[in-house]
Every structure is written in structure tokens, then in C-alpha cells.
């Protein structure tokens, strides 16, 4: 009893017969694959058509099933599903004869028919040699590690606890809250930071949450389902494992350093310092001890060292200007800016509110930055208003410098072990634009200012979104031993790479290049592939000089397909 491949050619209700000649196809395929049985069916996407094909006599079932139908982006995937149900365990494959041949060559039926023979032959040749990699079973620990207890990390932790996951939250500081602890009021609704933090802190006071303060993460390694984090706590090295990770380690405020004579003149402070002062003044309901304040925006932002807009500084300046005005209406506040950035209706309203409160604005150009005057003590700021073209000198007894947020330098150490890509500035990138909160390696998620400077409210939103993603990952892992490979990329599974240690030369090219960190060095120096990380792109196989790393689905099959179209006869 022999097993032969079975080819179904869909005529799409006969509409393809104009371009594809049935006799040419039958003859051509029979010449190259004499054992293949070819069936023409009117519409493979209709479930009945496959059932009507009787089991081939004398055969113990097909050795493989090739469906020649339409593109996988039309009905091809549905056709594959139906064929999979009709012939379980065979793993049918698809060849696109409609979009890929009949419809683009409809004016040249002879060439189209010859091409269709080639395409079916390529499919058959590939099917004959293609091997299947075993699906890795990924055990997923039902726990999540959240790095960073700022608003994003707190929100993620709280949401995960409510969703029933076990969460470990670590922060390098003693107090949760991150940068929010240094801020009194939040834009745009002037809520106090306690109002935002309070409920978040209540959420993490949950039995499923383990909060580790004063803990510095040093490195994270391991695979999806079981990541290992190493950290320093009370001077000791500790480690723990978790099924999924949420990186919410935030960003750092840039310091004004010595620019605009800060540190030299008294009365020159940073926006963050003003926050602290305002918090004290508001608590005591005391009037400010200064009468004329000038803010300078975009210090160290949108220039060579930090070539980006930090998003939060303009709304923060507006918010603080309004706060000053409401403490004492006679305080003069002037904001020197390079364009006020207040997108959206809520922030635009904040801008209008500041104008209504009597805050004054002047635009400066980066070529002519404001000049700070004073001797030991700040006396005035000279500026050339870029809009009116007039130069003016504004008397001031307080100068507030708005600086951007910058990436934390330790983010890169964490990112490296997890194959999280950093942009040219140093912020972490998700899989933009489709899955912005997910890192390329499964089970790793990003939220908050580690990605980009973000408002506190938005950090909370991102934290919750990342929590839902992480919970989905755990859930997929729980569902009977975790077949997580389909979570990675929708669509058919491309297989995973594997290494033949006998022929591996230990050169390490695959290890250096793997985009998911799946290729690693084993104890004997040869490469190993982590099934939980690999997504079958095949980069490792294409750089391997000794052919030791292969994607079983791919490498031999591509060669076999090429052979079918090569004209050389001695192949």
C-alpha cells in the first residue's frame, strides 16, 4: 500500500478556467509528480466540496494534501482550515493560483497554465521534503514581576491582582509612587497627587501582591513563562522567577546643571523644585515669597542632546503658573517658550485658563535664547520676542527652568537581556504600531515613561493595558500546558529553529543576531535554541556557515521549490 499526495485545484466556480487550462495542468503535474492524484473542485471554501471527494482506492490516505486555491489573504486560510478538518493529521499546504497566477496573467492563458503547473509542482516538492518542528510546550508560571512602582507600575500591579495573578512589585526607593511623590498637583484637573496615588496604593495592598521596596534590579534573563530576575536588596543578591514581566521603570528628569546661571544666581530653580515649594506654600496657604516669576521652557529639550519634546513640561508649566496665580493674584508670571505644546481639548483648555488668569507668554527662538541678568541674585531676564520682534527685559525674582525627562541609564541593562529594543534616544520600544505595549519577546510588556514621557493619568492607563496583556499571556499559559506559539504572531505557525550540535562550529553568529535572544550558547559551546523565545524568522539558519541551525519547515523546502523552477536539466 502506497501513500501518494493529493492535490485539490479550486476552479473558483469555473471562473479560473479562462486563464488556467485543465488539461495542461493535469498533464504538467503528472509529468513531474506521476504519483500525485489531482482533483478539480468548484469551490474549496464551501465545506461540502472536500467531503464529496471519495477516499482514494487502494491508498491508506494521502501522504500530503496540497490545496491550490486563492491567496491566504482572501479565502486561503479558510480553505486550509476545511482541508485540515477533512484530512486530520496531514497538515495541508496552500498554493495561491487565483491572485498569484490566474488573475495577474489572465491575458496570457498559456503562460498562466504553465506557471500554475510550476506553482503546484513547487508546492508538492516543498511538501515532500518539509519537516515539522515539534511545538514547544511552554510552562507558564502564574506570576508577574512588575519593575517600578510609579503610577504605571502601581496601576499594572493593582489590575493584575484584581485579575487574580500573583504579582511581585519592586522599586529601588522605599516609597511607592515614583516621580508623583515629588509633585503636589497634577494637570489638567488640578487633582492632588495623593488623589491619584491613594486608590492605587490601596489596590496593591492585596494579599496577592508582594511589594519589595529598596530593591535594585540588576539583570533579568530566562524565557517566557519563566523569567529570572536578579536584584540587590539590603546589600544582598536575591533572585526570583516570574511567568511574565512588566517594565515600568520610568524616566529621569534632566537637571538644569549650570545653564541659565542656575547654581550661580540665587532665585534660579528647576520646575521640580518649584513643585516642592508650591506644595509647601499650598499646605500652609501662605502667599509666595516672590512677586515676579519667569519660566523658561524647552531647556535641554528639542536640541542636540535631547532631540525630542518631552510632552509634559508645557502642561506642567501652565499648571504651576495657574497655581501661583491662585495663591496670589498679584504675582506676575511670564512663560518664555518655543511654542506651547498643549494638544487635545483638555490641555488647550488649560492654556486658555492660564491666559485668562493673566499669565503672560513670550516666544523665544533657540538661536537667541533668553539672557539671565543679576549679580549674586537674579534681577531680570532679557528676551527677544520672536513673534513681535521686540526685545524686552522682564524683572524677575524667581526663574523656573523646565527640563525634559530622559531615559534611565539602567534601562539599557535590563533591555539587553530581554531583547527589548531602545530607540536612538534610549526609550524602550514596543512592537510599534500594532502592539505598542508588548516587547518582541513574548511575556514582556512595557508601560509608562520607560517608553516615552507620559502624563500621570496616561501612565495609569498604560499600566492597566499592560496588565491585561500580561494576564492574557498567563491565561494562554494556563490553558492546558501552554501552546503559546500562536499567540506570538497571528496566522500559521512558521516553526522554530533547531541546532544539530554535531555540525555546529561554535562560531556564535546565530547567538549574536537572533532578534529574540533565542539562540544561546550551551554548556559545550554549541548553540541552543529556546523554543519559548523562537518565532521562526530563520535569520539564524541563514547566517549559519555550517548549516547546523535549521528551521525544518523552511530550509530544505525553499531549495526544493527553487529546483522546480530552475531550467538546468542536470539538477
Amino acid at each position: 500500500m502506497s501513500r501518494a499526495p493529493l492535490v485539490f485545484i479550486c476552479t473558483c466556480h469555473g471562473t479560473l478556467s479562462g486563464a488556467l487550462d485543465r488539461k495542461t495542468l493535469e498533464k504538467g503535474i503528472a509529468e513531474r509528480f506521476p504519483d500525485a492524484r489531482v482533483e478539480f473542485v468548484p469551490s474549496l471554501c464551501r465545506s461540502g466540496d472536500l467531503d464529496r471527494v471519495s477516499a482514494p482506492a487502494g491508498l491508506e490516505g494521502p501522504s500530503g494534501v496540497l490545496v491550490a486555491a486563492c491567496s491566504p489573504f482572501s479565502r486561503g486560510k479558510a480553505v486550509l482550515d476545511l482541508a485540515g478538518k477533512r484530512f486530520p493529521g496531514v497538515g495541508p499546504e496552500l498554493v495561491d493560483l487565483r491572485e498569484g497566477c490566474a488573475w495577474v496573467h489572465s491575458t496570457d492563458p498559456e503562460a498562466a497554465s504553465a506557471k500554475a503547473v510550476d506553482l503546484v509542482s513547487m508546492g508538492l516538492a516543498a511538501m515532500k521534503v518539509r519537516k515539522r518542528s515539534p511545538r514547544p510546550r511552554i510552562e507558564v508560571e502564574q506570576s508577574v514581576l512588575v519593575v517600578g512602582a510609579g503610577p504605571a507600575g502601581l496601576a499594572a500591579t493593582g489590575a493584575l491582582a484584581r485579575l487574580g495573578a500573583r504579582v511581585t512589585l519592586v522599586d529601588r526607593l522605599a516609597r511607592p509612587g515614583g516621580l508623583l511623590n515629588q509633585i503636589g498637583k497634577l494637570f489638567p484637573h488640578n487633582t492632588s497627587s495623593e488623589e491619584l496615588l491613594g486608590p492605587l496604593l490601596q489596590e496593591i495592598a492585596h494579599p496577592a501582591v508582594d511589594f519589595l521596596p529598596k530593591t535594585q534590579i540588576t539583570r533579568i534573563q530566562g524565557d517566557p513563562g519563566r523569567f529570572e530576575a536578579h536584584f540587590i536588596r539590603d546589600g544582598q543578591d536575591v533572585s526570583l522567577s516570574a511567568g511574565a514581566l512588566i517594565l515600568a521603570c520610568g524616566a529621569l528628569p534632566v537637571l538644569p546643571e549650570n545653564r541659565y546661571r542656575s547654581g550661580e544666581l540665587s532665585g534660579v530653580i528647576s520646575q521640580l523644585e518649584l513643585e516642592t515649594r508650591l506644595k509647601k506654600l499650598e499646605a500652609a496657604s501662605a502667599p509666595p515669597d516672590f512677586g515676579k516669576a519667569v519660566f523658561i521652557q524647552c531647556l535641554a529639550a528639542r536640541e542636540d542632546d535631547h532631540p525630542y519634546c518631552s510632552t509634559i513640561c508645557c502642561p506642567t508649566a501652565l499648571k504651576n503658573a495657574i497655581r501661583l496665580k491662585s495663591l496670589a493674584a498679584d504675582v506676575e508670571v511670564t512663560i518664555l517658550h518655543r511654542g506651547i505644546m498643549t494638544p487635545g481639548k483638555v490641555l488647550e483648555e488649560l492654556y486658555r485658563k492660564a491666559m485668562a488668569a493673566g499669565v503672560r507668554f513670550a516666544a523665544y527662538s533657540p538661536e537667541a535664547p533668553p539672557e539671565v541678568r543679576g549679580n549674586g541674585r537674579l534681577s531680570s531676564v532679557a528676551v527677544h520676542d520672536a513673534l513681535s520682534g521686540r526685545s524686552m527685559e522682564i524683572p524677575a525674582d524667581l526663574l523656573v527652568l523646565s527640563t525634559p525627562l530622559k531615559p534611565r541609564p539602567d534601562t539599557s541593562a535590563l533591555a539587553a537581556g530581554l531583547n527589548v529594543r531602545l530607540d536612538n534616544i534610549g526609550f524602550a520600544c514596543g512592537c510599534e504600531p500594532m502592539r505598542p505595549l508588548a516587547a518582541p519577546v513574548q511575556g514582556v510588556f512595557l508601560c509608562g515613561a520607560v517608553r516615552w514621557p507620559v502624563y500621570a493619568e496616561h501612565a495609569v492607563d498604560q499600566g492597566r493595558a499592560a496588565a491585561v496583556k500580561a494576564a492574557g499571556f498567563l491565561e494562554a499559559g494556563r490553558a492546558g500546558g501552554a501552546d503559546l506559539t500562536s499567540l506570538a504572531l497571528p496566522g500559521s505557525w512558521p516553526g522554530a529553529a533547531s541546532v544539530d550540535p554535531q555540525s555546529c562550529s561554535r562560531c556564535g553568529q546565530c547567538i549574536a543576531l537572533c532578534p529574540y535572544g533565542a539562540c544561546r550558547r550551551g554548556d559545550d559551546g554549541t548553540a541552543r535554541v529556546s523554543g519559548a523565545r523562537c518565532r521562526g524568522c530563520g535569520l539564524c539558519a541563514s547566517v549559519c556557515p555550517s548549516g547546523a541551525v535549521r528551521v525544518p519547515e523552511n530550509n530544505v523546502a525553499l531549495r526544493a521549490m527553487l529546483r522546480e523552477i530552475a531550467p538546468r536539466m542536470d539538477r
Partner: protein
Amino acid sequence: MTQPALNPQAPEGRKEVRAALFACRWCALLGAGRAGLDRIHLPASFRVIPVECAASVEPDLVLRALADGIDGVAVLGCHLGGCRHNEANRPARLRLTLLQDLLEIVGLDRRRLLLSWGTAHEGHQFGGLVREFMTELEAMPPVDTKLLRPF
């Protein structure tokens, strides 16, 4: 096993060429499908081979194809910065660009290896690219396979 003529009734004067197009299934394969839906008429002398990622195409495979008498090979991947496999197409581009240089060194036209990063994901883009490539190949003599003898 005999090979049926690829383009048996090709109009006179038009050289029969064959080209293998490796198309990333996240990008250029969509373009190929879209070209069909849009009924864009194309010369029939190319064959599309779907791949998971452009990075999976070995330089060996390209040389082998040319040595076997295929006139041209195209590797069609996602735009740089938009790879579905975390930038895997960047090292692929470096490697295949180097291969183009090597082709030239051994005496083959570098245009026999067409690289596209994100310029074939719409039907009309795919169609334009294929048409241009085929016209270029038609103007070239058959591959001198002696130049690639080790393969």
C-alpha cells in the same frame, strides 16, 4: 522528468526569463495578493516563494538559483524599522547587499538580485516592481553559470 517550457508561446523577440521572488509573508506577499485582487496584468515569468521573513533567505540559496540558470532573484521584505521579527531584516539587508557586490565581482550584473524593503506591500507597488525587474532581466543575457561553478 521533462521540464515543460516556462513560457511556450512567448511572443517573438521577447526573451524567456525566469525569476524567483522570495516574498515576506507579512509584507510583500500581501502585495502579491493585492495585485491579483486588483487584476494587475503582469508578465508570467516570475514565481513567488513565500517566506516567514526576508532574513530567512540564505545567500547560498540566491547563488544556487542563479547557478541553476534562474535569471534573477528578488528578496522582498518589510520596510526597515517595520520588520515583524524585531529588525531581523536589517542584518539581512547588509548581507544581501554584500552579495550584490560579490555578484558584480564575479562578473554578474548586481541587478540580478533585487532587494526591496517595504516597497512591494501594495498591489500596484508589487506590480511595478515585478514589471521593472522583468524588463531589466529580459535585456540581460542568460546567466553565465560557469561564473558560479562551485555551486
